[in-house]
Structure formats: structure tokens, C-alpha cells
């Protein structure tokens, strides 16, 4: 009987636990998590917006651990791994021995070194359910919110709170909102819809200092142009960093992220890592795929994990939907094709007959093939005249054996 221990109950940790249970029905699978409840980080705004409760943002059933006979040790943070004795240590004096270990600690929000920001008790991240709980508490006392960063996380928080009547100011260092996913036009559409809902944007400007009260709480953010913005609390959405402390403290190779090989093995035998903490990608589907691949390797299936293609996202704010795949910023030597109507905006970046970036704002139905075209580098040079109307019919093929589709190129 083997003992599998997983640190973390996010997308990677939970998907790994499921796969291990499926492959090894009789072995012991244990998940140790700082989080009390399993929750989808991508759905925290539903909780903060009071649209759903904690169970409503659980991405597996409430009976997941019981049903799968998986031990869940919650509210405990692993402090140290003794890789020689193959044991993890957590809590006051608890330990769990393992035969195979998976580190799936995810990533944590990052606070830039702005004076007072790192110490102030009213500066929150928006990453875990515990962050959302703290914001909820703070919101009961004051409704003026200052959000640093207008990426998906910042806008998620803004959309949730403005529905509840918050007075929101969002500062973005870049000259437009959601700078990684948009171009200027798409950004202007989102900016307007947020402004129509009462949010205020400060673009191309950052916070450089703060005024604090006697308790150390920030009462005013001072911008780089000297302007003071009064606020009740601050949400940091200026990026995340892989959580690697446990690896650093345990002699597992890590720099900015935990180093893994093509089978998601770390530098220490029988210790694997998956998800955000590997730094390979920061999006949900890749964390799920890594969790599954790592688990299969832990279970003895020799499976290579191909490098993920991390540039992909969708957004849906106030019913404005957008799909953004590939690199919209790399346009040197590329053709930029644009299609614009009153209800739709599409943009394709094509280089050497291959799609390298695609943006669609409006109805994004049936758009999945664009990600595949980019990821697989499929030659579309003969199809540029209908680049915005491509469907699977243009690449149609059927796998005769199992009846699934297959690209024929």
C-alpha cells in the first residue's frame, strides 16, 4: 500500500487527488490544505458579490473527499518537508509520511514595495476564499475601495463590489484596462461598461505612497502624480508569485518557481509539483492538466507533460464577452486583420501563414478552434480571406475508430 500526500486543494491538487484515487483504489490519498473549503479561485467574485455561498463556488461536490475516500486535512499549512525521512510536517506537531508527494501550493498575490502597503492591515489580496472573507468584512465598514491592477482579478473584484454599491477606483500602470488580454479598442469597451457601473479608472499611473492612521490602516493612496485618493481599504491585483517557500525550506530546487522536469518531477526523488507553483502557466486548465499528469506519473504511468500554451483567456463582465488567445502584443513582421461591426470586434495576428494571436469581443460562440490553430501552428495561409469565419468544417476529419473528430491538415 502506497501513501500519496498532496499539498494544496486548488485545481492541480484536487484533480491530482481524483486521478490518484481512480488509478489506485486501495492506496491512501491525503490532501493537506491551508484552505478550509475547496473553492474555485476563478469564482471568488461570485462569493464576494453575494451571488453564491462558499459551497456555491466549490468546483467539486460537497462529498468529494468522502465519496472518493480521500483524507482531507484542512486549515493546516505544511511547514517543512523532510525529504530524507519522506515526511511532511504541519500544525503544532503533526506529521504525515509519504511514499510520493505532490506540491500544489499555487501562487499568492504580490504586493509591490510601495511604502505602507505591505504592512497595512487593510490591504487585501483577492486570491483565496479567506481573502474574500476579509474583504467582505472590510466592506461592511467602508465602501470606498481602491484596487491596484486592472487585470482579470482586479476587474473580478470590481465587478463583484460595484454590484453591491461600492465606490471603486482602479489604478492601472498600463495605459489601458486588462493590458495582457486586450488591445486599445477592446479595453475601451470594457472600461466604458465598468464606468457605466460606477467604477473610476486611473490609467498609466501607479500608487507611490500612502497616508496611514494610527492603526497603520491606509486612509489615502498617494499616486505618482501626487494626487491623494481617500479609501477605506485596498485590493491588490497586481500579479501573483508562485508559492515556493516550502520548497526553498526543504532543499527542493526552486528559483522564481519550483523546478520540474517533463514529467513534473522536482529535483528530489518522489516529490512532484503541479499548477501555478511550477511557474509553467497561470491559468486554470493548465493547472488541472498538470495535476492529472503529475498524478498519473506518481501512480507509475510514464507520461510526459508537454509544455503548456499559457496565453489564453476569456472574460465575461456585465455580459460583455471576450476571447483572447495567443500574443496580441507581438506584431512585428505580422499582418494584423480587423473586423469591426457595431456588435462585434475581431482581430487576428498572422505571421508566416500562421495565426499567432486572436481577439474576439462579442459573441464568442464556436471560437475554440482559434486557440488550437495558434497552439498547433497550423498553416492557414490559404484561408486568410475567411479568417473571421473559420469553423471546424475547414479542417474536418473523423477518427474512424472511435468516432471522435480529428483535425485534417
Amino acid at each position, binding site marked *: 500500500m502506497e501513501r500519496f500526500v498532496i499539498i494544496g486543494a486548488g485545481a492541480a491538487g484536487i484533480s491530482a487527488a481524483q486521478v490518484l484515487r481512480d488509478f489506485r483504489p486501495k492506496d491512501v490519498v491525503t490532501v493537506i490544505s491551508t484552505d478550509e473549503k475547496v473553492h474555485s479561485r*476563478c469564482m471568488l467574485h461570485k462569493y464576494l458579490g453575494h451571488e453564491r455561498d462558499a459551497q456555491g463556488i466549490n468546483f467539486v461536490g460537497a462529498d468529494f473527499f468522502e465519496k472518493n475516500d480521500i483524507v482531507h486535512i484542512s486549515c493546516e499549512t505544511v511547514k517543512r518537508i523532510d525529504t530524507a525521512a519522506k515526511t511532511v510536517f504541519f500544525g503544532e506537531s503533526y506529521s504525515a509520511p509519504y511514499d510520493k508527494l505532490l506540491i500544489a501550493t499555487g501562487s499568492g498575490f504580490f504586493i509591490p514595495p510601495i511604502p505602507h502597503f505591505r504592512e497595512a492591515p487593510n490591504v487585501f489580496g483577492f486570491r483565496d476564499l479567506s481573502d474574500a472573507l476579509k474583504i467582505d468584512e472590510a466592506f461592511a465598514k467602508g465602501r470606498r475601495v481602491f484596487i491596484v491592477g486592472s487585470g482579470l482579478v482586479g476587474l473580478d473584484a470590481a465587478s463583484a463590489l460595484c454590484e453591491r454599491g461600492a465606490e471603486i477606483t482602479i489604478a492601472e500602470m498600463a495605459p489601458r484596462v486588462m493590458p495582457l488580454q486586450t488591445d486599445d479598442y477592446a479595453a475601451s469597451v470594457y472600461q466604458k461598461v465598468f464606468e457605466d457601473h460606477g467604477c473610476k479608472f486611473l490609467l498609466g499611473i501607479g500608487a507611490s505612497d500612502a497616508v496611514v492612521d494610527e492603526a497603520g490602516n491606509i486612509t489615502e493612496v498617494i499616486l505618482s502624480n501626487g494626487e491623494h485618493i481617500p479609501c477605506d481599504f485596498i485590493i491588490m491585483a497586481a500579479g501573483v508569485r508562485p508559492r515556493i517557500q516550502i520548497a526553498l525550506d526543504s532543499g527542493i530546487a526552486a528559483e522564481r518557481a519550483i523546478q520540474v522536469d517533463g514529467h513534473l518531477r522536482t529535483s528530489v526523488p518522489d516529490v512532484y509539483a503541479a499548477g501555478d507553483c511550477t511557474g509553467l502557466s497561470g491559468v*486554470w486548465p493548465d493547472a488541472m492538466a498538470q495535476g492529472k499528469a503529475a498524478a498519473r506519473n506518481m501512480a507509475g504511468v510514464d507520461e510526459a507533460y508537454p509544455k503548456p500554451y499559457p496565453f489564453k483567456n476569456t472574460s*465575461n463582465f456585465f455580459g460583455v464577452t471576450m476571447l483572447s488567445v495567443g500574443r496580441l502584443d507581438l506584431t512585428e513582421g505580422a499582418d494584423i486583420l480587423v473586423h469591426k461591426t457595431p456588435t462585434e470586434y475581431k482581430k487576428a495576428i498572422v505571421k508566416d501563414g500562421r495565426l499567432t494571436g486572436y481577439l474576439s469581443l462579442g459573441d*464568442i460562440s464556436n471560437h*475554440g478552434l482559434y486557440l488550437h490553430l495558434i497552439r498547433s501552428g497550423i498553416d492557414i495561409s490559404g484561408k486568410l480571406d475567411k479568417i473571421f469565419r473559420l469553423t*471546424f468544417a475547414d479542417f474536418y476529419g*473523423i477518427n474512424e475508430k472511435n468516432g471522435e473528430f480529428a483535425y485534417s491538415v
Partner: protein
Amino acid sequence: MKRIFIEPAKCDGCKNCTLACMESHREDGGRGLYTLDLTDPANQSRNRILSDGKGGYLPIFCRHCDDPDCAGTCMSGALVKNQTTGLVDYDAEKCAACYMCVMACRYGVPAVSPDRKRMIKCDFCQHLEEGPACVRACPKKAIEVREV
């Protein structure tokens, strides 16, 4: 486990399958093609018959893939591969309408609902005892339910 097998060469492009899908999933309580509002986006079909540009037709139906891109990307748990039936089940209550599934399906099957609060894809007509309406509507047997 069952899958709708497709033989494109047999398809005449009559779109009876498309109408049958719309009829099977209409939410206005009515029955029968004569009262089906073909222009209402709420009645959109989950299958599509597209031209191959050479006089032939290419049916695009959800494959309920063995390793589904859509379920693999779902961050709410709304899309789940059912290991017993083989179908990719969808729970609209759980869905957060993030549309990562739309992005992930390499065959471009999932669609966005008109109110942008749900996704739309084939549910294998699990509400009908007799199975998928599209298959029964096809006069050419270009689509057929088979065991896999």
C-alpha cells in the same frame, strides 16, 4: 458508452437534425415544428451542418470526447465527463459563464447563451427516453448512435 457517429458522405444538408435539436430544447412549452420560432436565439440548435464548399455537407456535433477539452478547462465543476454514461454532462446551476469551455473546445462546439449566463452544447437529449432527437430526425442515417 454511446456516441453519435457521423457519416458526412450520407448527409444531404436537409437540417432536419438542426430543427429536431431546436424542437427538443425549446423552453416555451410548445410542441411541434409549426409553432417553433426559428428566429428566436433562445431556440438555437446544438448541432450545425456546414458546407464543405464542394457541394457536400459536414455535420458538427458534440463528440462527448474521451478526454474532453471543455470539462478539462471548467473552473466551476459545471462540465463533467460522466464515467458511467460517457457523456459530458452540464449543470447550468453550477456554471459561472466564464466561457473557458468555448475557448478550449478545439472543434468549436460550445456556444454562448443569448443572455450570456450559460453555455450551450449537446446533452444527448437525456430528457427523451428514445434518445437524441437529431438522430431520429435524420432521413439518411448520416448520424447514428453507436456503442464505443
